[in-house]
């Protein structure tokens, strides 16, 4: 199942809520892609120390070669949000001076975190660069662990919409344009609102914010274009989503909702991986009478069966058994590449 998904797409985006094993799963699939002979890049988000050392990643934003499998190679890189956003500003600025005005603004640091959904947008921007510039046959993107997986999808639209918004227009004074009636109203309102804001926040803040928006304005066209390109990348045939969830009621419900949303927006969901599935075949008959082991076993069976209905309905809405993998919850520790390999085997043999 996973091999076909890898072969049929250039970009695989691993999406899902936090705590479902996205980072480990995406690294394991990256390993498989390299095993199949492809030059593969795994873009990871804030992985835990163990995974960092297992993959040999030492510095943020450095692409590291993790392993070789004959012709195939596995590379990995951690995404450094700050530098990705700085690079982005530079790449969409017409010249260095324009870029510096933005980068030097005292509010830029916090603004660049809030702006456009931060991690979500910069992961996409990093992906975009990897696709356009870096010559990998396969790119695996691990997404940020948002509370709601949909945050990720909204990122490009948020940035695009920002340059369309009235708030932006408050601060930009365009000399020489003939304001229509609505704009006139706005300008009057702007003065009143600014007065309120000054009372609330103090003058420096407003000045810095105004300056920031004025400097951003020069970039607005390029930013719009970039957002559109990123959006196209997400929707293209060479990109697919892999939905990752786990055998937990809340997470299964989230995955279902996210799945519907992906379909609604026309994104391709190639596969769903459900981690932490019950690892045993249900056995019949009574063994150890009233034993603790049997008691715990029966309790766990009930617990999983409870959630199995949810998992099955997610699977059925998702193309059935051909496209959904239940990965058993077998205890293991991720200390090095060989253990990542164990995870990979479970996914391949699913």
């Amino acid at each position: 199942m996973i091999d076909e998904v890898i072969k049929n797409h250039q970009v695989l985006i691993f999406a899902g809520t936090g705590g479902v094993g996205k980072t480990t799963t995406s690294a394991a699939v990256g390993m498989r892609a390299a095993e199949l002979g492809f030059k593969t890049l795994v873009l990871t988000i804030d992985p835990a120390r163990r995974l960092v050392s297992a993959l040999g990643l030492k510095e943020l934003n450095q692409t590291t070669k993790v392993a070789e499998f004959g012709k195939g190679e596995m590379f990995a890189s951690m995404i450094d949000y700050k530098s990705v956003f700085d690079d982005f500003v530079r790449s969409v600025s017409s010249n260095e001076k324009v870029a510096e005005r933005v980068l030097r603004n005292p509010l830029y640091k916090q603004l660049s975190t809030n702006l456009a959904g931060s991690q979500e947008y910069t992961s996409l921007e990093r992906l975009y660069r990897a696709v356009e510039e870096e010559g990998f046959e396969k790119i695996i993107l691990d997404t940020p662990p948002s509370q709601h997986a949909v945050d990720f999808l909204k990122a490009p639209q948020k940035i695009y919409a920002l340059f369309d918004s009235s708030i932006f227009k408050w601060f930009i004074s365009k000399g020489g344009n003939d304001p229509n009636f609505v704009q006139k109203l706005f300008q009057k309102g702007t003065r009143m609102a600014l007065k309120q804001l000054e009372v609330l926040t103090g003058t420096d803040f407003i000045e810095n914010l105004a300056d920031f928006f004025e400097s951003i304005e020069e970039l607005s066209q390029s930013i719009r274009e970039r957002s559109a390109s990123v959006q196209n990348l997400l929707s293209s045939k060479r990109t697919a989503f892999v939905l990752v969830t786990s055998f937990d009621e809340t997470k299964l419900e989230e995955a279902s909702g996210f799945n519907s949303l992906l379909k609604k927006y026309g994104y391709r969901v190639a596969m769903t991986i459900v981690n932490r599935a019950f690892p045993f075949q249900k056995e019949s008959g009574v063994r150890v009478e009233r034993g603790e082991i049997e008691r715990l076993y029966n309790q766990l069976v009930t617990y999983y069966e409870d959630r199995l209905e949810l998992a099955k309905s997610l699977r059925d809405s998702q193309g059935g058994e051909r496209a959904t993998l239940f990965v058993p919850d077998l205890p293991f520790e991720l200390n090095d590449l060989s253990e990542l390999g164990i995870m990979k085997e479970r996914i391949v043999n699913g």
Partner: protein
Amino acid sequence: MQTPRSSEQTANESQDARITMVSGKGGVGKSAVAAAYACRYAGEGKRTLLVEFAEESFYRRFFSEGAIGFEPVSLGPNLDVASWDSESCLRDYVVHLVKLERIYKLFFENRVMSRFIEVAPGLRELSLLGKLTSGIRKVGPKLDYDKIVVDSFSTGHTLSLLRAPSSLNQAIQKGPMGVQSRDITTLIRDPKAFEYKIVSLPEDLPVSEAIEFHSALSETTKQNPALLMNKWLPSEKASAQAIEIEKSGHELSVFAQYVVQKNVIQTQAMNRLKKINRNIPSVPLVLEKLRGLELANKMAESLVSIERGVD
């Protein structure tokens, strides 16, 4: 300031702390644990507000209560629940401060305000913390509860939330928000105002993140946050038996092996946390078919019995 030293350390668990912030790695079950604490305090007779910081409500589904929103709704005796997003908190603040709801509505409504919150640095955080501490600071609409339990964001986001007021101070020196941000910075470090709970799972990666988070949170709050284990598989008894069965080639021997391994991992995870704080409560994985308030109350039982016990 208490510098984290060694395993002699116990967490700041002041009975007086008005606000309990619950956080942890994404997916460890913060929301359920926060609900459990709220049930515990309500059961002790304290007027309690359970608050989730969320753009979209989790508790509406968890408690099957569609009415949960910005204004608190009652879930039972002594227990109210609310869902706060930063835009509503800011509106609350501005309307109260400005006292001109007409003007507010005209120029700050909806689309425009939410954009502004998105781009203004720290405004989102200050709005949430401002609302949360408004009872203690005696400003704004009434918020007099004995206890407020917060289902906060996950680790990184909670850190930036708590750090925002002090970093904001530099950008906003004057005005009510400047003063407010200084007051909030002080309160965050005051054990009579705030206490912190970090939720982990009995597994390697969540424990690593919990330990890192504990260090960062201690630094920011100058307090020692409590650590606790969620979804602890109640397998100790079964494990003792499992060791025999594993070897016997019995039909359940594969399962027995699973139980033994799980137990080893759980114990290792617990030992790592115990190096930070002596007392680590553990909330068992609830295997019965319980939901919502019943589930939270069941989890609260183990909070009471464990936290009272000698570690």
